[in-house]
């Protein structure tokens, strides 16, 4: 069907949207509508307050029927936002949705320009281009692809865990891939959680073991995704399973081997305890590690370094689980959707030298303190400083590596609250004087402010001011041997020197070091600061620009536990929607070959990264496999004789846009 009226006439309906004041205040909407009326093929041209509203959409449907329109143009916001909305409106009106064209006069015009005359001219030009373009539009079939019901979840922190359980409980098969030897992520390292002060382990470990034991969850720890191929509905994933040198099937996590290791004492900083103590080359990250499996760290194990170890561990294991020969293996799986929950890393406090981290032993990061006050931590929960003291006074410095042009500009959102929590715990453990140095207290969350009040009652001191430096430079006898925190107390307008025994740096949250690699691997985008970019900040917060890939938790931006869990649920729901629909609509912007125009020169064959183009050796012409074609159009641009065409982006359409944009009345230039 060419979709044109009787005697093939083109009948265009043009609608321009005020978008409240968003467009109307900068673009003379009325003038544009009037102008478009004068263009060839335009039957109807009108303005409307909110085109995306129901009445707006119904307007289109009504006009299609009453005025037998066969081309629809809406000038409003970005097609990335509402193209789908209007296409379906057009379809409801009984017209093929691809006779629709959108003109972006908000993001591309009214929001970026101030000069009304110039903006209006630009809107006219863009509209004229669209009018000329739609003449070449054709009716197209929307493509559908099946959705493979299995889901890949990357990252075994609280977000990944929650998403995995949600999907698994809904009966979907889930692969949970975690790069560390255990799941649990940062949350497992925390002592208590704000504002409820329930212990992190108590609420997390049950979920961890559920994951381990869930029939629908395949848990691969100590593993990394190395290959991502395919597209929404059918992804092929390659997972590298790093060797633990311990046979998972045999190990029961009795830890005898660890006791028997020829290293009597640990030698390597213990990752789980933020390096506050040492672990052996053969270890279990922490008592509730899931899975309960021993790992051997080849970097420090004598056997791997010299090959001359007594291998006491091997003898210690009566189940013969230890296997130095173990090799990494690559598993290949097929999934339809992917959830990335790769989390965050903490800000490296060394980047702010004048806070003295790494220079003064008694300066700690918040994460270290979490372990320090934790019963299962290196000191069994007793607050002993690196120099053996028990602190009488503690200073907590907020916004370390947050809200700071020199490091990270964003607010890490969690530091205020966990600082309050730590203040409470420190008092509880030591009844020391605790000072909080803050810029603002951001306690925006359910019963967060109340927690802040509680802390005020606990006589924790709050100094409103950004700390200038932490120094051991004593100017008064009272300061000798202490760390002095210098900050301007902006509430009383004086610079204060507060001598303390212990400094806690409330370090901010940053994108994972490998966020960029992950982004490339999964073909999604990052926002400026390096966190994964959501499809829309408000309306599609867990979607990405790549269909079938969703994001959850702190990999999308700093988040506390409740938010991460909520987002994980949302991501799981999005994946479920796809799976249960069973198929997804794809843009029909695929490429096709006009057989009688193709000379079989093979140029296009070298263009396609998806092998969607092959050659009919009998006819000696190119043929396109629509299912594989992703619609980039690279081959079309390369076809030397113009025999390839891309639906929705045919040469004629683009030439007519160019023509429309430029054939303006000379005098009315921009």
């Amino acid at each position: 069907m060419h979709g044109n009226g009787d005697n093939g006439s083109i009948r265009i309906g043009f609608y321009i949207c005020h978008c409240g004041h968003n467009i109307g205040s900068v673009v003379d909407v009325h003038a544009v509508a009037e102008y478009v009326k004068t263009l060839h093929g335009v039957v109807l041209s009108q303005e409307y307050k909110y085109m995306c509203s129901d009445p707006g959409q119904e307007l289109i449907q009504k006009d299609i029927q009453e005025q037998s329109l066969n081309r629809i143009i809406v000038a409003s916001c970005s097609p990335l936002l509402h193209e789908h909305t209007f296409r379906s409106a057009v379809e409801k009106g009984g017209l093929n949705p691809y006779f629709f064209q959108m003109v972006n006069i908000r993001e591309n015009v009214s929001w970026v320009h101030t000069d009304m005359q110039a903006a209006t001219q630009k809107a006219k030009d863009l509209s004229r281009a669209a009018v000329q373009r739609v003449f070449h539009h054709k009716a197209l079939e929307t493509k559908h692809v099946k959705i493979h019901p299995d889901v890949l979840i990357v990252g075994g922190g609280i977000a990944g865990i929650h998403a995995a359980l949600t999907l698994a409980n809904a009966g979907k098969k889930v692969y949970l891939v975690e790069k560390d030897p255990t799941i649990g992520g940062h949350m497992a390292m925390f002592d208590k959680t704000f504002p409820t002060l329930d212990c992190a382990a108590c609420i997390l470990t049950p979920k961890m073991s559920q994951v381990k034991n869930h029939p629908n969850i395949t848990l691969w720890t100590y593993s990394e995704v190395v290959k991502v191929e395919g597209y929404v509905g059918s992804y092929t994933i390659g997972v590298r399973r790093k060797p633990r040198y311990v046979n998972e099937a045999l190990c029961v996590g009795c830890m005898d081997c660890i006791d028997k290791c020829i290293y009597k004492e640990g030698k390597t900083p213990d990752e789980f305890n933020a390096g506050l103590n040492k672990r052996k080359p053969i270890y279990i990250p922490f008592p509730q590690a899931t899975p309960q499996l021993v790992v051997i760290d080849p970097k420090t194990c004598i056997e791997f370094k010299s090959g001359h170890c007594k291998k006491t561990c091997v003898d210690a294991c009566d189940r013969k689980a230890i296997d130095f020969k173990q090799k990494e293996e690559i598993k290949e799986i097929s999934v339809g959707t992917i959830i990335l929950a790769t989390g965050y890393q903490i800000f490296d406090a060394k980047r702010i030298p004048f806070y003295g981290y790494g220079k003064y032993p008694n300066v700690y990061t918040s994460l270290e303190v979490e372990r320090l006050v934790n019963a299962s931590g290196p000191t069994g929960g007793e607050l002993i400083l690196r120099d053996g003291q028990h602190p009488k006074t503690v200073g907590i410095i907020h916004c370390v590596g947050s809200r700071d042009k020199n490091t990270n500009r964003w607010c890490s959102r969690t530091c205020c609250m966990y600082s309050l929590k730590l203040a409470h715990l420190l008092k509880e453990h030591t009844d020391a004087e605790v000072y909080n140095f803050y810029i603002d207290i951001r306690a925006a969350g359910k019963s967060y402010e109340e927690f802040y009040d509680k802390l005020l009652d606990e006589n924790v001191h709050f100094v409103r001011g950004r700390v200038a430096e932490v120094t051991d430079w004593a100017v008064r006898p009272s300061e000798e041997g202490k760390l002095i925190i210098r900050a301007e107390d902006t509430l009383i307008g004086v610079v204060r020197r507060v001598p303390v025994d212990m400094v806690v740096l409330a370090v901010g949250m940053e994108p994972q070091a490998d966020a960029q690699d992950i982004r490339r691997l999964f073909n999604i985008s990052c926002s400026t600061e390096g966190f994964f970019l959501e499809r829309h900040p408000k309306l599609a917060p867990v979607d990405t620009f790549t269909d079938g890939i969703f994001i959850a938790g702190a990999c999308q931006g700093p988040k506390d536990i409740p938010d991460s869990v909520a987002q994980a649920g949302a991501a799981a729901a999005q994946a479920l929607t796809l799976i249960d629909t069973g198929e997804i609509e794809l843009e029909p912007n695929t490429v096709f070959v006009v057989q009688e125009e193709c000379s079989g020169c093979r140029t296009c064959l070298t263009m396609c990264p998806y092998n969607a183009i092959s050659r009919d050796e009998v006819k000696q012409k190119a043929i396109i496999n629509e299912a594989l074609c992703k619609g980039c159009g690279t081959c079309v641009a390369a076809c030397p004789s113009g025999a390839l065409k891309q639906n929705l982006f045919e040469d004629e359409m683009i030439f007519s846009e160019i023509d429309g944009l430029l054939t303006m009345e000379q005098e009315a230039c921009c």
Partner: protein
Amino acid sequence: MKYLYFPGCSLRSTGRAYEESLLAVLKALEIPIEELDDWNCCGATSYASIDETDAFALAARNLALAELQSPDETVNLIAPCSACFLVLMKTERYLEDYPDVSKKINTTLDKVGLHYHGRVDVRHPLDVFVNDYGLENIAKRVKHPLKGLKVASYYGCQVVRPFKTFDHSHYPVTMDRLVQALGGEPVDWPLKTRCCGGSLTGTIQEAGLRLNRLLLKEAEKRGADIMLTCCPLCQHNLECYQQRINRIYEEEIDLPIAFFTQLMGVALGLSEKELGMQRLFKKPSLSHITHPKGAVVNAW
């Protein structure tokens, strides 16, 4: 590429030792420089406080001259004095960032047949030595390692602030790394960039002296044998007022204050004359370094 050199007034008066040692060291390291022809006062901090635009114009003239004198794509202009360094750089950045300012300044410059196109990069000698020439290369040329010499590096307020330049604005380490490369022992002290009182020593002396006292005492407390500066005014303040400070506050501070280039020169084996050592009130005793055998000759 060759460096242009902007001496500034201090290096021709109170800071002569700085210029002498700087030039000697540059020569020893075979770093080619050329003095900026017809340079004029940078305006220091005082002019800007009276009329900023005029001050910019004054400094900008030097930048324009530099462009005339050098064909390089980016003209490296060395300004050893902290004040000159800061003022010239500040001017350069303002002209770059604020078209209206540069328009105004350039119309002024045009009147005397000059124009600034934005090609100048104002450099500090520390930056040039450490980041262009390289610590390894310096270490290679060290004749007398400053063995066992405890050095407090003092940067003063202007070289790393307010602009982020070649080092951390709160905790610079360039001079300390240099000292290390020369075989010396940097003392870690937290007052590296604290105020030396600047011109206060001449105006509200009490305040000025108090500030100097803090610096000197802490440096001594941290076991420094000598304090190095890269600013003529700092050097002057810290050195010349020690006796008065001792008198007023009943202290016994006795700390040599030298320009970092002087100690560089010593390590590179240059003579005290070349390095203007004789101009220091408190001569550091370095004979054990320059004559490790403990030879009879007293270096000073």
